[in-house]
């Protein structure tokens, strides 16, 4: 489980998160939504410990985790932009992450699934954006972590891979994991999300299921619901 207590984060003068608290007790898919610059990525990075809040506490499995590092074993992270050291090959990168994590992994299966086989010995610097995103996905899903944090996982993916990704997420969800996801693809949210966390002006403007959102806004589809949240 993940718990955020009174998190405040400012970048200079700009308050991105203003005293935010929420808890995720059970497994499921949680979509973090909000307009650009509303702090979606910041929240994810705070959970990962990459961004440090001015105030507040983060708990993972009931432990305070700010400024600690070992809890990241429990988390797999898919960063927003797939950037890797240019000089490494795909294979080396995968081996390196395995070496650093030192956990059982299932990369072959994923490589097969996403059709990355022929790129294994290519340098990451020479890969296209979409292929790099696939590598990103392999790295994220190859470990069996109880928490998955996916920041715009669909960026640059072709439709086939998008379907594969959905399947992957579904499977993880079925395994009872906590999946935090930000995305602009609302269809993905509609088909995957158990709950929506909507950020606006540094606060959680709405939290609840898709049905609750529809109820609250009185709109039929997600697109319009969100638009009305922003009004």
């Amino acid at each position: 489980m993940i718990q955020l207590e009174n998190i405040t984060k400012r970048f200079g003068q700009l308050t991105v998160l203003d005293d935010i608290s929420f808890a995720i007790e059970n497994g499921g898919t949680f979509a973090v939504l909000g307009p650009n610059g509303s702090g979606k990525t910041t929240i994810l990075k705070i959970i990962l410990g990459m961004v440090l809040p001015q105030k507040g506490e983060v708990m993972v499995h009931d432990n305070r985790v700010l400024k600690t590092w070992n809890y990241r074993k429990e988390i797999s992270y898919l960063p927003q932009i797939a950037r890797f050291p240019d000089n490494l090959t795909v294979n080396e990168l995968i081996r390196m992450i395995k070496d650093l994590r030192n956990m059982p992994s299932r990369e072959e299966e994923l490589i097969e699934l996403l059709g990355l086989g022929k790129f294994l010995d290519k340098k990451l610097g020479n890969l296209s954006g979409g292929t790099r995103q696939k590598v990103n996905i392999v790295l994220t899903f190859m470990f069996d972590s109880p928490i998955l944090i996916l920041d715009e996982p669909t960026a640059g993916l072709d439709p086939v891979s998008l379907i594969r990704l959905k399947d992957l997420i579904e499977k993880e969800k079925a395994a009872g994991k906590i999946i935090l996801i930000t995305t602009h693809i609302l269809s993905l949210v509609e088909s995957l999300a158990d709950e929506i966390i909507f950020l606006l002006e540094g606060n959680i403007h709405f939290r609840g299921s898709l049905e609750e959102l529809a109820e609250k806004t009185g709109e039929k589809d997600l697109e319009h619901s969100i638009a009305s949240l922003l009004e």
Partner: protein
Amino acid sequence: MILKVLKYSFSDLIRSRWSYVYLAFYLVLGFVLLFLNDNLSKAVITLMNIVVVLTPMIGTIFGIMYFYNSREFTELLLAQPIRRRTIFLGQYLGVSLSLSLSLVLGLGIPFILYGITQSSQIWDFATLLISGTFLTFIFTGLSIFIGLLNSNKIKGFGYAILMWLFFAVIYDGIFLISLVVFDDYPLDKFTLFASFFNPIDLSRIMILLKLDISALLGYTGALFQKFFGTGQGLIVAFTMLLLWVAGPMFLLVKKSSKKDF
């Protein structure tokens, strides 16, 4: 874990073209110097002038470049169960070691082939390599620290170059001018003290103690005599350089633990 991080940034670096350019530069420099100068001691002196200025510069540029270019790698690592300190120290050591290796191999090979090991210059040469390695570590650390302070690449790069320029030229300029201006006061304490605060001066002095001891002993002050005439000078310079290595490392760890990525 730090060794793993070190291993990966090191292997990343020794794969990059620039490490080879750097290594090749020193190899060429070494061979050319030995070819042009028929005697070793002259080559060592010329080399000293180059090493004392160049290693800090290369350390600075590589440090800051590596820091900005390996952001992806850093972010990747930050999401892994690794301590921040480990990540940055590992990368810092990776850069410093690969640069030092280029220096030591690049100069070592030509001079060993030339027979430095059988020559009386071996200690001068060793001091040179040790100083160069110190300077590489110090300036790599300082420039990575500057990188941590500045998210803006252009700014960071500018500050790093300015930092190098400051230690390489400006500091000595101010130092020299103040010595000349305050000529009427006893200056030996100030002189020694002021040179401790510039690692380039410290390594230069370490080499002077080998190459120019004859001139250094010409100075009348008792403090200088003690500093240069006994082993004390070398020990103090060495200790100060170690502190200079530790300082940026400490700052680096401190700053990295507070930074957002």
